[in-house]
């Protein structure tokens, strides 16, 4: 059963005067099955971020529809949108987006506080997640007191604590060194294996090679996709690389 469906998404930005139109997404169609780990790749300017914003209900498409678990985004009222996002989606950002006025613990608990969960319930949910992400001992620290990897794991914990239907990750390894990146991606795989659906936008072939499926976006369209199937991470890495190479050379032909 598909948990996320994007149908014919189109996004056009108008310049301030209204004379220039820029088509960020021309027609995006894809779906994500429950329990999948999907990576989306593309050059900068290919429309990745625009798409992620639309999938996160932070931005509305010019036309087309997004369904999450059968619910159409455009049917949700502005008022309920924040609650919807909070209860159904988890976010991990490239620059962590942790609040420096909160300890890691409070940062993780923030979405629960917003949905008015009781304090005891918060703690029961926090403990296993913090433990599995290996940040139990840093919970009382402030973001500026811990490393980038620890920050990002706290951000993952914050994304997961609401038990979201879909975890959206935007270049989650972008600000991490290679060691911390590998550790985070292994965590992602682990979470995925326990049944969490993940959608990750990335530049990194290495990051994408952890996914079960990779979508390539180019010029506002889904250009190509690769399934991991039974192949190993190394084989997947090579497949992705090849796909990127052909996409890039193809791109040059176009221009």
């Amino acid at each position, binding site marked *: 059963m598909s948990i996320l469906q994007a149908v014919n998404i189109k996004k056009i930005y108008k310049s301030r005067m209204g004379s220039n139109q820029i088509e960020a997404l021309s027609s995006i169609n894809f779906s994500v099955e429950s329990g999948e780990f999907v990576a989306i790749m593309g050059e900068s300017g290919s429309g990745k971020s625009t798409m992620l914003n639309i999938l996160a209900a932070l931005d509305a498409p010019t036309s087309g529809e997004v369904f999450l678990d059968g619910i159409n985004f455009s049917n949700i009222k502005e008022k309920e949108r924040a609650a919807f996002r909070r209860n159904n989606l988890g976010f991990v950002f490239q620059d962590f987006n*942790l609040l420096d*006025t909160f300890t890691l613990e409070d940062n993780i608990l923030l979405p629960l*506080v917003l949905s008015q969960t009781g304090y005891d319930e918060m703690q029961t949910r926090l403990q296993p997640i913090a433990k599995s992400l290996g940040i139990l001992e840093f919970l009382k620290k402030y973001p500026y007191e811990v490393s980038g990897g620890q920050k990002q794991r706290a951000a993952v914990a914050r994304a997961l604590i609401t038990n979201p239907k879909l975890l959206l990750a935007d270049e989650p390894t972008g600000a991490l060194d290679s060691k911390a990146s590998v550790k985070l991606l292994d965590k992602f795989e682990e979470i995925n294996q326990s049944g969490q659906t993940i959608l990750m936008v990335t530049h990194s072939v290495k990051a994408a090679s952890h996914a079960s499926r990779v979508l390539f976006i180019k010029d506002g369209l889904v250009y190509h996709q690769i399934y991991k199937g039974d192949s190993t991470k190394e084989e997947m890495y090579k497949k992705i690389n090849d796909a990127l190479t052909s996409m890039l050379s193809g791109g040059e032909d176009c221009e």
Partner: protein
Amino acid sequence: MNKNMYGKMAIDNIRKSKKLYLPYLLTIIGSIMFFYILSSISANNYIHNPATNREAFKGAEFLCRVLRTGKSVTALFAVIFLFYANSFILKNQKKQLGLYRVLGMERGHMVRLLAWEILCLYGIGLIGGMVLGILFDKLMLVFLFRIIEQKAPVGFYFSQTGVINSIILAISIAIVLLLRSTISILKAKDIELLKSDQTGEKEPKNRLFLALSGMVVLLIGYTMALKINNSYEGIMNFFPAAFMVIIATYILFTAGSIVVLKFLKKRKKFYYTTRHFISVSGLLYRMKQNAAGLATICVLSTSAVIVLAAGASLYANGERSIQEMYPREVFVKVQGDALEKTNQIMEEQLTSHGVSDEENISAVYGTGFFALTDTGITANMDNYFTGFDTMPDLYVFTLEEYNRIYGTEEILGEQEILLYSSNQLYTKDTLEYQGVTYQVKGRAKSDCLDYIADSSMSLFSKMILVVPSQAVYDSFINEKEETSSTITYVAFNLSGSNEVEQEFITDLKASFEEKMKNSDVRYKEDERDEFYSMYGGILFIGIILGILFLMSTVMIIYYKQISEGYDDRERFVIMRKVGLSQKEIQQTIHSQILLVFFLPLVTAILHATVALKIVSKCMGMVVLVHMPTFIISFLVTCFIFSVIYVVVYKFTSRSYYHIVNES
């Protein structure tokens, strides 16, 4: 390279960051304007010409002196406020200069750029302030003359002194600020310049001990302000108490707020709710950065409220004070027992001017310095400056004189007296003086105090003694000693036209001066002029200072709002991503700002309320304070001040929302 590149850059900077520079510029303009107006009026030859010593009305010279003091105070506060505003600007400038530095600008160039910026700001400020000053000068003069109940002079007046003074003030402030900015820029490391607005924020420490001592200091200050009995104690305690309350305000705003917030944070069930979670943690940081600024707003607001309330009540109570001091239109006070001679001189002048006296009252009495003892009084003067409680103003009447004044037929035995004392000062049945014990036979009527023009007002407690004979009187009042004397007092109303009265007074004064030594003749109309120029002048300065305080408060609030807006923007962007709706964001912002900006106002009103008593006692040193008038003036001032504060808050919080919601 274009020679004037720095000038162009400076103007560009100012124009591009209007939000930052405009309030600063307005503060400069406002300060210069008020400074110009005060210098202009105080140096106005029409009001008082120092060369010829000609006064436009009685008390004009004093008025000019009050205005000159006000001018200096204005200059002082202008320097403080502009310094404060400049630190906000400097913080912003540093970041920009950091970027220029990375692009290869030398420090010398930066200083030149800064110099140009200051030159532009103060140039515009000076010209703007002087133009507005010259325009409003006349208006303020008319306003001042209305307050002091005089006819304003006609014509437009341009003050050379005002212009020169304003230029000197603007240049000196500009130079001081340039020096300060230069030092700050030269001292800073490049990386600090670039990141001066994002230095790592540590959670503030919990300083329970400091907070508690702040509380103690505040209570001591409050107690000092409340536990006073008379004007003397009031004056003695005023500055220490004010100092303590100011210190305590700063401590409690900085350390106390953190202690309270930390306590709230520890209460998990309270803290982990949508409403409190973001507010408490946000406030914790906000208070750390802003406590000093908020405490400053609080102290300024308190001073503004007190100054305005005091000035307004003095003024509103003017007619009553004059009435108390001058129960009749004219009074004559002569040293010695000289009622007959006084009346004779008076009659001469009355007849020659064809006016008649009405409601004539007169009294001959003795007064001097006495101190209370356990059993009576003594002429001992040792405790004059410390024992205000035991130093009554003593008035001695012979029985004969007492009966004459009141038309009574009281009889006293050899060692019997009548006694009156204000404030329950002396309640015993006997009074010992120089080894003789007098029996208090009854209570003396006190309304003869009304006949005695008394300059010390409510400063001292008062006692009236009515003694049986001249011999006893002489034992109290001995002309040979300098500590006591007999005074003859005559007061009366006049019937006649104003001009005739004026002539009569002039001649009466001359006549008394010629024939009696130590005489004092006063005419109520003249005294009223003097009174109004004195208290009207003080009120006028109070209003100008009040406006200046308010202006600075507005400026500080504004800068707090925008600097916080920029700090908070990022936080709210993140919260939006995590799933906080626009409405919830607005609510959190609202409750946070509300608390932060109304805390100083509420505290200020509390401080001012506590200060009511001590302020009224201090005022009592120089003028009669009518408590109901004072309290009404206070309430009205608080109300007006709060309204303006709320308006300012509404106005500036709009720019805050605007900044936070910019995506």
